[in-house]
C-alpha cells in the first residue's frame, strides 16, 4: 500500500487574535505560530497507521515556502518515508483548484494506491483540493472520512454526515480520501524527535521542475480571487462582564439565578 499524503502549513489562528494587513488581502502573520493544518495531522497519522497494517510507503507533499519543511519533518517523525516540497513564487494566490492542478502535475508520475489529504484547511477552508485532485487524476474519492478499512482492491470508508450520522461507502482504489479530525489520535511530535530528522533529505521542485507555466498557477491560473478581507461584523450586542474573577463570578451567579438556575 503506497500512500501519498498532502499537508499544509497554516497559522494557528484558533487561539490567536487576528489582524488584517494594510492591503486588506492578507492577514498579518507576524506573531502568529505556524503549525501543520489540524486535519492533515490526522491524515498523516492515518497514512502511517495504514502502512503499518498493510505495508508499503508513505510520501508527504507540501506546497509553500521553504518553511513548509517544518511540517514535512513532523511527517518524518510520525513515520513518513519521504518528503517533497513544492516551492515557487508563482504559486502564491492559487485557489483550491489551482493547488490541485499543481499537486496533480507531481503526483501523475508517482506510483500510489491511496492519496490522503485533510478535509479542510483552517486558513482558507476551501475543502476542495482533495476532490479536485481526484477529478484531475481521473480516480474516485471520498470526503470527510472518519474510518478506513482496506479490502481487496477497494476501501470501505466511513464518511461523517451531519448530526452524528455516518455513511459507509465502498470505493475502488486508487482513490483520494479527505480525512476529518477525530479519525485517530495523532501522536505528539517532540522537538527532540524533530532534531533527529533535521538532516533528512527533502526533495524540492519548482514551477519549471514540474514542467508548468506561470499562467497556469497562482492568481493568473485561478478563477476566483480574494478582493478584500474584513473582520466579521458583530451580530449581537454583547454585555461585557468585568474581567475581575470575583466580580465576574458574582454576575454569572446572578444571571444563573435570573434564568431559573440555582433554585
Amino acid at each position, binding site marked *: 500500500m503506497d500512500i501519498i499524503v498532502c499537508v499544509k502549513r497554516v497559522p494557528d489562528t484558533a487561539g490567536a487574535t487576528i489582524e488584517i494587513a494594510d492591503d486588506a488581502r492578507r492577514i498579518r502573520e507576524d506573531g502568529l505560530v505556524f503549525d501543520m493544518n489540524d486535519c492533515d495531522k490526522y491524515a498523516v497519522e492515518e497514512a502511517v497507521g495504514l502502512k503499518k497494517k498493510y505495508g508499503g510507503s508513505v510520501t508527504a507533499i507540501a506546497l509553500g515556502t521553504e518553511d513548509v519543511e517544518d511540517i514535512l519533518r513532523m511527517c518524518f517523525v510520525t513515520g513518513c518515508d519521504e518528503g517533497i516540497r513544492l516551492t515557487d513564487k508563482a504559486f502564491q494566490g492559487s485557489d483550491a483548484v489551482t493547488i490541485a492542478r499543481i499537486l496533480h502535475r507531481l503526483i501523475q508520475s508517482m506510483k500510489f494506491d491511496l492519496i490522503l489529504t485533510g478535509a479542510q484547511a483552517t486558513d482558507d477552508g476551501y*475543502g476542495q483540493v482533495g476532490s*479536485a485532485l481526484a477529478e484531475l487524476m481521473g480516480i474516485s474519492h471520498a470526503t470527510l472520512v472518519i474510518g478506513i478499512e482496506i479490502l481487496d482492491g477497494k476501501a470501505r470508508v*466511513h464518511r461523517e454526515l451531519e*448530526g452524528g450520522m455516518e455513511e459507509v*461507502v*465502498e*470505493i475502488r482504489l486508487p482513490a483520494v480520501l479527505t480525512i476529518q*479530525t477525530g479519525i485517530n489520535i495523532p501522536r505528539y511530535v517532540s522537538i527532540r524527535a524533530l532534531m533527529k530528522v533535521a538532516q533528512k533529505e527533502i526533495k524540492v521542485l519548482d514551477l519549471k521542475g514540474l514542467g508548468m507555466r506561470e499562467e497556469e498557477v497562482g492568481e493568473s491560473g485561478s*478563477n476566483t480571487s480574494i478582493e478584500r478581507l474584513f473582520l466579521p461584523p458583530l451580530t449581537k450586542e454583547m454585555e461585557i462582564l468585568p474581567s475581575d474573577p470575583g466580580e465576574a463570578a458574582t454576575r454569572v451567579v446572578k*444571571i444563573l439565578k435570573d434564568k431559573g438556575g440555582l433554585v
Partner: protein
Amino acid sequence: MGRIFVLIEHRKGAIRDITWEMLIKGRELALRSGGELTALLLGYQIRNLAEKLVQRADEVLVVEDEKLSNFNGEIYQRVLSKLISEYKPALTLIGHTSFGMELAGQLELPITTDCIDLCLENGALKAVRQMYTGKVNAEISFIGAPSYIVTVRPDVFPAEGQQTGRGEIKYLSLPIEEIKYKKFIEYIEPAVGEVDITRADILVSVGQGIGDKKNISMIAELSELMGGVLACSRPIVDKKWLPKERQVGLSGKTVKPKLYLAIGISGAFQHISQIKGGHIIAINKDPRAPIFGVADYGIVEDLFKIVPVLTSKLKEIKAG
C-alpha cells in the same frame, strides 16, 4: 444573470433545510438579475418532493433513477455535469455539507465554497466566505467564466420565506451510467448515549482552551454546581476527552438550553450555529473570538482565572 440552479439536498425521503435556505437566496438573486430559478432534484421515488419544491422555484428538473436512490457523489456528479452543460446556468448553488463537499470540487468549474453571503455588484457575482476559523471574512470575486459553482454554508440564510408561486415540474429521462467506483453501503445512526444534551436547560460547555484532559473535571464540577449538563465543542471529542454524545455542533447535536456557558470555546460556526436560543455567557481570553459575536454576556479573561473563583462562589451558596 441567467439561470440559477439549486441542487436539492435530501436524505431518507426528506428535504434538508439547506435546500430551502438556498432556494431563498437563489430567489433573491434571480429577482435582482431577472434570472430564472431552477431546482434540480435527483433521486428515486421522489415525486412527492418535487411537489413541495415547485412552490419555491420557477422550474423543478427531476431526474429519477434507481441508481440515484442514495446519494452517491460519483453518479450525482455525472448527472449534474450533464445538466450544467445542457442548461448552462450562470450559477449553481450546492450546500456546503457532507453531501455537497463530496461532489462540488468535481465539476471542473470555477468554484468557491462555504459562502455566507452572495450578491450582485454591477451584474457581477460576489461571494463572502470566512477564513481563519471564522475570524476573518473574505469577499471573493470570480474571473471570466460563464458558469460558477458556489457552495453555501448551512444555517446562514433563512429557510422560511414567501412562496413565489407555482413553477413547473419537468421529468427528464437521462441515460444513467452504471456506478463503477463508489458504492453506497449503509447509514449508521448515532449511538444512544447516557446523557441527552438536547434536553438540558443549562449547558456548561468546554472547548479547546481547556488545554488538557485533566482540566475537564474542573468544568464537570462547575457544571454540577450550576445544576447543568456538561457539553463540549468538537476538538474535545476529536481528542477523545469526552464522548461524542456531548458535542454541540453540526456534526454533533443541536441544543436549545435556557443558559449556555461557553468556556474556552472560540466559537467555530459549526458550533455556534447549533445553539438555538437561550442566553449565552462566554469566557475566552481572545476578545475577537467568534463566540463573542453571538454571546449575550462575555468575560474576556483566562478561563483558569475565572472558573475556580466561580466554583468556590457556587460552593459557598450551596453551603448556605
